[in-house]
């Protein structure tokens, strides 16, 4: 891990929610989902790793493309992550474990920095996004059954709001404004886009 820029990482971490303890606030998109569902539904706890990779031209965020044919979100771009298991100490541990399982980047190459606000998904997950620094020397070992590829998206590009296409939901009646970003053949939208939006809102004004 590079230590020369330790203070920059500390500045970044201070803009995030603390690592310890799940944020007390309910997901701010829960109300719209419950209106659409016609009432509350049980949510399964999940965690994702928002991995930031420092590159010479700026920060990049590590994304995966899920294997086609998976029951949940098959073929979609997402962060590494999944359900929080009984054996996971907390959301941070689950995000790190899932990252190891899905793309082979282990705890030694991942330094959790903080969190952004949780969100609920249409597929009834309550997702805790964990933001972490990822060693740029990482090597991928993809779990072929779950992930078809992994790639890095420059954060400075994601921060340009005009590049995001307003994206009408395929679910009539669900009042959520979605935007989608096309990047080298990948379409970033849905929960992944909403998590990026939360991160970028917290990093506003910082050099990316």
């Amino acid at each position, binding site marked *: 891990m590079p230590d020369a820029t330790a203070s920059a990482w500390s500045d970044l971490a201070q803009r995030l929610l603390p690592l310890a303890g799940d944020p007390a606030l309910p997901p701010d998109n829960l109300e719209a989902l419950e209106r659409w569902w016609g009432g509350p539904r049980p949510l399964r706890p999940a965690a994702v790793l928002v991995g930031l990779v420092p590159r010479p031209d700026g920060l990049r965020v590590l994304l995966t493309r899920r294997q086609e044919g998976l029951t949940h979100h098959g073929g979609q771009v997402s962060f590494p992550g999944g359900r929080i298991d009984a054996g996971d100490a907390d959301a941070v541990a689950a995000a790190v474990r899932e990252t190891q399982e899905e793309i082979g980047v282990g705890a030694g190459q991942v330094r959790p920095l903080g969190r952004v606000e949780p969100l609920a998904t249409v597929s009834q997950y309550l997702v805790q996004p964990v933001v972490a620094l990822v060693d740029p020397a990482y090597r991928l070992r993809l779990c072929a059954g779950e992930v078809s590829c992994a790639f890095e998206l420059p954060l400075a590009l994601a921060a*340009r709001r*005009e*590049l*995001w*296409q*307003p*994206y*009408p939901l*395929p679910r009539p009646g669900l009042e959520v404004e979605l935007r989608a970003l*096309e990047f080298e053949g990948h379409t970033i939208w849905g929960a992944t886009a909403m998590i990026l939006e939360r991160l970028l809102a917290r990093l506003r004004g910082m050099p990316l």
Partner: protein
Amino acid sequence: MSFPDTVIAAAQVVARLDDPTLVLLDCRYDLADANAGWQAYGRSHLPGARYAHLDTDLSDLGRSGLGRHPLPDPDVFAAICGRWGIGPETDVACYDAAGGALAAARAWWLLRACGHRRVAVLDGGWTAWTAAGLPVSDDRPLRRIGDYPRGASTLGAACEDAGALAAALAAGDILLLDARATARFRGEVEPIDARAGHVPGARNRPYTENLAADGAFLAPSGLRRQFEILLDGRPPSQVVHMCGSGVTAVHNLLAMEHAGLHGSRLYAPSWSGWITDPARPVARGG
């Protein structure tokens, strides 16, 4: 291959539906519900069409004092063009469900202001397309390319200054044409803006007069006769167009170009921008 630079017939678009060098822009917008056009796009649109949102793509609502639909920043709009997959060599057909007035002509004008000439408004728009039983789709295409080159853009130099407009009117240097419906122009009704009436000296030319009963454009010769009466010997370059917020006004500008009367301009802030300063004069009637 030549491409029309004002109005394009549905038959010409149908023939190129699978052609990636033709980008279709769905610009449908409902003044009463800002997201209705977007949601309609989500249900169905011309195959492969991208959505152009009047509020977030064709305007920058963050600029104050310039009316309800201020022009977008040139750099931001160049990036939006890239998001739609539009580059200098791309052909573009814009359509809406209002004969081109909301807001296909606005997209057409903005692209021209970027220096892009290979852009036209689909004659009859969504209404004629679906009435003819032509194909529609609910696909959600995304293919982003780099920002549109800024070399030939005149967007940053567009006419937005009320003071300059008033001075040119007073000097008799321009003919100001207001595209709003006559009752609004006369100040008899005002469904949207805080004050009713029009800019003193403006002439009323409702954009609806550019269209036949079926929503298609009148023939260029007919449009030319109508505008020549209004021009009364003035060169087209002296004409400045306005409306409520610089959107339907472009329909008149497009109609003039379609009629071979080139070089008229847009006062984008329009009525909603003019009245932001209560000191500016307002006329009623006539």
